């Protein structure tokens, strides 16, 4: 009896807390923690789904850096280009729009917020219908027809199949749908700031709206800025499938729109080199971690 009593005490004190947490954390462990750890473990193996995984140390990572020409020549530069424009670019755009919206009265603000947010509600699969006909490669495509009507181009352009246009279209399409939950958080953050702060700053000699943004608005809503940053980083990397959706093929034409997510799919589901794909996944997760650390430096509470 006596040996049981500390356990009983604990159960009485903390048991119900863990009971409330149990379902969420069970699912969290199964579908988030275990897959991440499994990816890490598999990344040190050779695994073709038929034979059991065979430990090969760092060889996947070494060949990723030294032998995978596609990765080094196309996937990595593409991913960085896409991530830098869509990530910080989309984030700055979201903040700017949130700030502009905050300058309007409630009704127009709500209407514009709804319009800007609604693209982020659309599913990638649903919008593929639209992009394919807007950017269709023959003269019946809306963009081609429009540009030919203006006599800006003579021949229809194969927008989604040509390496030089695929990436810009991917970026525009992703930016179009990037005003999501982070944008709403920043809008709410700006509206929450105590107006007396602005008044006090005006008395202290702050006179332009730009100064106001940098000295009052942003410092007062750092937590929302950080939340928005994390959401935008995750959104950027999560959006990686767009190139394949648009061009309709993996690999994308001459690897022009090949991002790290497509590379994982290519090796994992098309070539069944699961160990190698897992190593690429780990690299992707590390990239997300790295970008989040940067935003933590900028907006975190310790900064």
């Amino acid at each position, binding site marked *: 009896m006596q040996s049981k009593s500390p356990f009983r005490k604990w159960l009485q004190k903390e048991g119900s807390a863990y009971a409330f947490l149990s379902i969420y954390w069970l699912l969290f462990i199964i579908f988030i923690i275990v897959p991440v750890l499994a990816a890490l473990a598999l990344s040190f193996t050779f695994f073709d789904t038929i034979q059991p995984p065979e430990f090969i140390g760092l060889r996947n990572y070494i060949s990723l850096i030294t032998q995978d020409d596609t990765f080094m020549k196309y996937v990595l530069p593409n991913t960085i280009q896409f991530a830098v424009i869509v990530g910080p670019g989309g984030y700055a755009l979201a903040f700017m729009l949130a700030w502009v919206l905050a300058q309007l*009265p409630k009704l127009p603000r709500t209407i514009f917020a709804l319009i800007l947010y609604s693209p982020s509600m659309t599913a990638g699969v649903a919008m593929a219908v639209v992009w394919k006909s807007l950017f269709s490669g023959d003269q019946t495509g809306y963009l081609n027809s429009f540009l030919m009507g203006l006599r800006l181009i003579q021949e229809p352009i194969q927008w989604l199949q040509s390496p030089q246009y695929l990436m810009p279209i991917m970026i525009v399409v992703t930016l179009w749908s990037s005003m999501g939950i982070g944008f709403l958080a920043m809008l709410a953050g700006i509206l929450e700031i105590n107006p007396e702060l602005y008044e006090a700053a005006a008395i202290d000699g702050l006179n332009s709206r730009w100064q106001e943004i940098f000295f009052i608005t942003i410092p007062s809503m750092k937590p929302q800025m950080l939340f928005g940053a994390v959401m935008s980083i995750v959104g950027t990397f999560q959006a990686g499938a767009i190139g394949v959706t648009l061009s309709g093929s993996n690999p994308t034409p001459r690897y022009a729109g090949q991002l790290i997510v497509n590379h994982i799919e290519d090796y994992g589901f098309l070539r069944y080199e699961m160990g190698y794909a*897992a190593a690429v996944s780990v690299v992707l997760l590390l990239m997300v971690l790295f970008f989040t650390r940067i935003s933590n430096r900028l907006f975190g509470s310790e900064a």
Partner: protein
Amino acid sequence: MSRNKFRRLSGVRNRGINPRGFHVSQIKFYVLLMPLAIFMLLPIIFVISNAFKPPDELFAYPPRFFVTSPTLKNFSDLFSKMSTSGIPVSRYLFNSILITLVTVAASIIVSSMAAYALSKKRFKLKKTLFAVNNVALMFVPIAVTIPRFLVIERLNLLDSFWVHILPVLAMPVGLFLLKQFIDGIPDEVIEAAQIDGASDWRIYWRIILPLIQPALATIAILTFQAAWNNADTSSLYLNNESLRTFAFYLSTLTSTTTGANAVAGQGIAAAAALIMFLPNLLIFIFLQSQVMSTMSHSGLK
């Protein structure tokens, strides 16, 4: 707060942040927002317009953006159609509706229970668990598709109804937003109930849940979008066609309608895309004020 009084006295009511009414200084913002709003709306108007176009307008050359003689033919074609494997389209739609409803309900309960404990209960791992969840905000599910597949295979969840639902329930953003919102409820409210002898479950059910309705509405929207728009689960974890979702069916429409077929299938695909989009929009319009009040608690410290 004296916010409104302050604004009235200082005469800045219609200028600066969150004005009450119109002021000339706002015109520049409208000028900036208008073209952008049109750009954002164009693809959505395009879907709506295409969904109601008769075949001759879909085939028209030069193509016209707006529909001139709208018809419901695309919708009736969509529902009289069978997929290549002989499943009626209504079956996919039924699956999507059922999966979405169950996921939203389950997600509200599961995340709010965990959020209540994480916010108001005292226990050793509290800080650690919240920190772990914050790290998981960065989680990119698409990166671990393969190990997830292996886990789901081990658990015998392949080709089951639950594989649509269970992975979506572990939603770090949802738990985070709910926890932040519950933090705003004063501890005294809960202590008073405890003195009256209320059990934890009763406190959660009778006090917490009614007070956090805006946050619950937000979680409902986020889960709705995740479940309703989900085509990946159907293609990765299911072979049984009769368990797949409407979003998946739509993705087969767009991937097979290439080349000469593209125009013929376009009307049906646009009708399906509209059916995908409308519920998202309606729910958000309906709940938007609740979402905004949750978002003001969204700060990540």
